[in-house]
């Protein structure tokens, strides 16, 4: 909603209120100021009177004017076509400086001297009004030749753009905004009434018959105007341009002006087009076409849908001789339901109607009559036609203590009453603490005590409400969700310490890409209905594709070493959510530098797995089949934790690496829940020295260490002395044929005593015999 200071001034006396106060007050009463422009007209730009205007002898497009600028009459050459129609104009006299540091000097145009410039609106920094120069009239105040234009407050106006929230239908007009300001400044609103200059002697009943065929929550007022001449004033054009509502025709300008000022939905019909042949009486019917749609009809033809739109064919234009003026109101909830359930198309006025237009339709129609009378010659019908049951004010029982408890501030009862009265509420006192409040018609969304609390609070001023801490009497609220957040934070910290950067990518993915790389996708019936772009047309079932795309972007940015991780939600085909962690490491593990004697090192499987370990803790790898298209068939493994598969780690398939323009890359995706830090019970510590023993065995060359470890874990469970083991070395050559030599290191320790050689020997021989039996090992 855009208003101007001088326009507001027509309803509220702002003479003692400066712009700064105005600006602050708007924000504090909930009308957020989007922009605030104080138009200043440069000095020495004055009202000029064109005394003579002749064609330039040597230039077709120029005119030579003799202009009275107050103190003198000067010659000015003007290029605007409409100068020939102009009497009073804005003249930038010699010595004035226009916006853009444009200095007006004495000039010669095609041999004719020119002392100044006749200005268009844009040359003075105002919005565009019309093609050519501004033609002034006394709608901005009495025109005094030579008077500086900056002194006309309707001209050098302040334009204020307010951001209205959806509940402020009552402020969709200059009048509504002024009404709210009056409450804030404790001022009386200036009342408005109007009697047309000229009224016909014939009653409207001879020209118009309207019958309501249904009940509807709204109002209609009609009047008829017979037009001899209709002109817009300069002020109408200027203000409509200020508020960005300028139309193309005079009649539309007048309608827009009256609607913007009053907030009433106003329309005009061409009366002659509604007449049936020579019949001078027009019959209109108000009918419901469906539950929430009310139409104005002439016979079978729909002229308009109330609050929604108007049939173009019967709209009045500048050639219309007799015009039927209509002011309408319809309940906003009703009209919104009608438009949305019937998918109706609507025009600009629907926006106003849907948020609650001004219900005082008579005021709107009178204001429109006043506009039609300005600078024009119009005769109005002597009476009106009004349709619709008078609207009833909503009544709310108000307990003041309850209202103050919502706000949390001790405001006196008289002040509460005075604020509400100033906003137009009627207060019937029930007892010391309660009122029966009747809500003004224009506040259609005020339905309960908290709505009223908001009205009191914004006028009382939020700044005046003292902040108060809440007294806590309750148990602590540390719950599992909070602990899970803490645990996730730990994992993220560890990942960043292990050189991964945290990425946040969209929970969306491309269905095509997921399918291409062999990941599951949502069942068709559960799929997104309205994706924003094709590349994000489904929910992700893996974090990795997004991370690969991020890695690929980093390659384009020139990064050689890319380590990313993400903790996030993924979906399965049934669209069930789960949390995962994914890791990607691409390119160099360390760049060439003095540290590695100028030899860069690429990331490899061993290093990647080691880094994973420092994030997710202890795990084992079990060789696996590639379960999706990203995995390398021979460099991939299931991650096993506490005997359960929790994810996979793999080299990125070289074909995929090529798709994403990546160097050697390793990936892992892991369920989040199993890697969350767990509660740990400490074991007793042994005070006796541990012994390290190495054992080299020969096994089949394609036997995985995982099989060996399974056998060894079996021993570990029975043999308390075997504390730990890990692969130390692996060796194969031609002599060994299809065998390989595997060296394993064992930690042996007793909790009870220092180990004897016999005890150690016994453990080692148990290990050897088990390995012989279970994996066919022989000693080397």
């Amino acid at each position, binding site marked *: 909603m855009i208003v101007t200071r001088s326009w507001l001034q027509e309803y509220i006396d702002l003479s003692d209120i400066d712009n700064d106060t105005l600006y602050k007050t708007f924000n504090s009463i*909930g009308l957020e100021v989007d922009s605030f422009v104080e138009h200043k007209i440069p000095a020495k730009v004055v009202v000029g009177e064109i005394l003579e205007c002749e064609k330039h002898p040597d230039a077709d497009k120029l005119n030579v004017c003799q202009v009275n600028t107050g103190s003198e009459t000067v010659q000015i050459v003007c290029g605007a076509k409409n100068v020939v129609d102009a009497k009073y104009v804005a003249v930038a006299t010699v010595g004035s400086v226009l916006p853009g540091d444009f200095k007006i000097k004495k000039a010669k145009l095609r041999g004719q001297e020119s002392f100044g410039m006749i200005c268009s609106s844009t040359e003075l920094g105002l919005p565009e009004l019309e093609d050519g120069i501004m033609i002034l009239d006394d709608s901005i105040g009495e025109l005094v030749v030579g008077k500086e234009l900056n002194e006309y407050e309707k001209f050098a106006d302040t334009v204020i753009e307010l951001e209205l929230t959806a509940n402020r239908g009552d402020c969709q007009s200059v009048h509504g905004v002024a009404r709210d300001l009056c409450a804030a400044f404790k001022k009386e609103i200036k009342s408005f009434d109007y009697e047309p200059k000229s009224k016909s002697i014939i009653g409207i009943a001879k020209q118009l018959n309207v019958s309501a065929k249904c009940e509807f929550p709204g109002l209609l007022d009609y009047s008829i105007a017979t037009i001899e001449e209709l002109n817009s004033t300069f002020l109408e054009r200027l203000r409509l341009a200020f508020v960005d509502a300028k139309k193309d025709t005079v009649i539309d300008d007048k309608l827009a002006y009256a609607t913007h000022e009053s907030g009433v939905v106003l329309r005009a019909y061409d009366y002659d087009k509604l007449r049936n042949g020579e019949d001078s009486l027009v019959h209109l019917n108000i009918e419901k076409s469906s539950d929430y749609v009310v139409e104005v009809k002439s016979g079978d033809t729909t002229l308009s849908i109330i609050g929604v739109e108007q049939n173009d064919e019967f709209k009045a234009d500048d050639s219309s001789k007799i015009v039927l003026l209509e002011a309408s109101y319809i309940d906003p909830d009703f009209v919104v339901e009608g438009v949305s359930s019937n998918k109706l198309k609507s025009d600009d006025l629907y926006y106003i109607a849907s948020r609650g237009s001004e219900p005082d339709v008579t005021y709107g129609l009178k204001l429109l009559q006043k506009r039609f009378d300005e600078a024009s010659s119009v005769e109005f019908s002597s009476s009106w036609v009004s349709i619709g049951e008078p609207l009833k004010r909503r009544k709310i029982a108000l307990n003041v203590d309850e209202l103050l408890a919502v706000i949390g501030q001790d405001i006196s009862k008289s002040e509460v009453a005075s604020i509400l009265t100033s906003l137009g509420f009627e207060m019937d006192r029930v007892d010391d603490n309660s009122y029966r409040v009747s809500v003004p018609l224009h506040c259609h969304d005020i339905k309960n005590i908290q709505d009223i609390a908001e009205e009191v609070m914004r006028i009382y001023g939020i700044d005046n409400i003292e902040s108060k801490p*809440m007294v806590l009497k309750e148990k602590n609220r540390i719950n599992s969700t909070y602990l899970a*957040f803490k645990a996730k934070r730990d994992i993220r910290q560890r990942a960043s310490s292990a050189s991964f950067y945290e990425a946040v990518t969209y929970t969306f993915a491309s269905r095509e890409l997921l399918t291409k790389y062999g990941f599951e996708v949502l069942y068709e*019936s559960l799929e997104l209905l309205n994706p924003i772009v094709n590349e994000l047309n489904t929910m992700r079932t893996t974090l990795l594709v997004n991370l690969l795309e991020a890695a690929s972007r980093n390659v384009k940015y020139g990064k050689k070493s890319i380590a990313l991780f993400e903790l996030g939600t993924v979906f399965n085909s049934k669209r069930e959510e789960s949390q995962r962690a994914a890791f990607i490491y691409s390119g160099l593990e360390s760049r060439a530098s003095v540290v590695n004697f100028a030899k860069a090192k690429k990331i490899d499987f061993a290093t990647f797995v080691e880094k994973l370990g420092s994030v997710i803790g202890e795990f084992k790898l079990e060789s696996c089949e590639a379960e999706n298209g990203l995995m390398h068939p021979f460099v991939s493994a299931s991650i096993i934790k506490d005997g359960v598969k929790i994810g996979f780690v793999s080299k990125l398939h070289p074909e995929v690496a090529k798709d994403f323009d990546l160097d050697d890359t390793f990936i892992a995706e892991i369920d989040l829940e199993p890697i969350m830090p767990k509660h740990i019970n400490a074991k007793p510590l042994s005070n006796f020295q541990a012994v390290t023993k190495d054992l080299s065995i020969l096994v089949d060359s394609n036997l995985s260490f995982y099989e060996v470890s399974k056998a060894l874990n079996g021993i570990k469970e029975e043999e308390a002395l075997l504390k730990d083991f890990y692969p130390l070395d692996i060796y194969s050559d031609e002599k060994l044929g299809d065998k390989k030599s595997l060296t394993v290191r064992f930690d042996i320790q007793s909790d009870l005593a220092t180990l004897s050689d016999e005890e150690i020997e016994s453990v080692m021989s148990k290990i050897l015999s088990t390995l012989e039996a279970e994996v066919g090992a022989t000693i080397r």
Partner: protein
Amino acid sequence: MEELKQKIEDVTNLDTLESVRVEIFGKKGILSAEFAKLKDVPPAEKKDFAKGLNDKKSALTEIFEAKKAELEKEAMNKQLESEKIDVTMYGYENKKGSLHPVMETMDKIIDYFATLNFSVETGPLVEDDFTNFEALNLPKNHPAREMQDTFFFKDGHLLRTHTSPVQIRTMLKQKPPIRMIAPGTVFRRDYDLTHTPMFHQVEGLVVGKKGEVSFANLKFILEDFLHYMFGDVDVRFRPSFFPFTEPSTEVDISCIFCEGEGCRVCSHTGWLEVLGSGVVDPNVFKAVGYEDVSGYAFGLGVERFAMLLHKIPDLRSLFEGDIRLLEQFR
């Protein structure tokens, strides 16, 4: 004697010192030979002789120990010097990664409210119409419910457009009093320079007995929270409108870029909008079957907080895994 003293003094390295020690103090050394003479000394002189010899030995020992200390120190210095490297060449290969600024900002927010005994609650990303809209008093024809703003699935479900449904889920599950925040991912169908189809919010809700929780309490906690997040800023409350709160307010802080003077970031207003908040609308309580309660709620966008706090210029860069951005947060 002087000769022996000189001999020790003349030694220049620890190896020679050792052979000198053997020569003088060893079993077959000079001093042992002198002591051996004691048995031939007449008994009356024995005491003096022994004393003279012992004095001589301790004088020599003292010189020897001093020499030894001196030479050891010299040797250590030599070793130290031989280990010299150019330490300034190192420290260029830091391999630490970093946490995402949005996630870190979220952590910081959670910390504040957890300290004030707010529970942390979560909910699913895929929601139904009741929990995301209807229970929150969003009228059927509210623009937010239209296709252009919300991601819908073919089966009528939708991606939550705010974290507010977690309020509803928590209220349905628990009894008042409630004091919670809901951090999480949300989705809107918007994609341009200043909007991404996914972002993060933190929602807060406090519910107590009727008359127990007021707007003044909300004002207190949000002022304190914004000072915790942004330091010494001015906080401004403006009346506003949200379907699920009444009264509703938007909360601004004085612009942290220009300190309220007016700049491009704050559109020359001197203020930055950072929060939406209000007293919970009775219709919301009605939807979850609560009676005789009062409460407040607030919500904020984590990306906006992160961008303001760290002066990150481009929203979309936050979702690109761009290491050039992330490595600044190591």
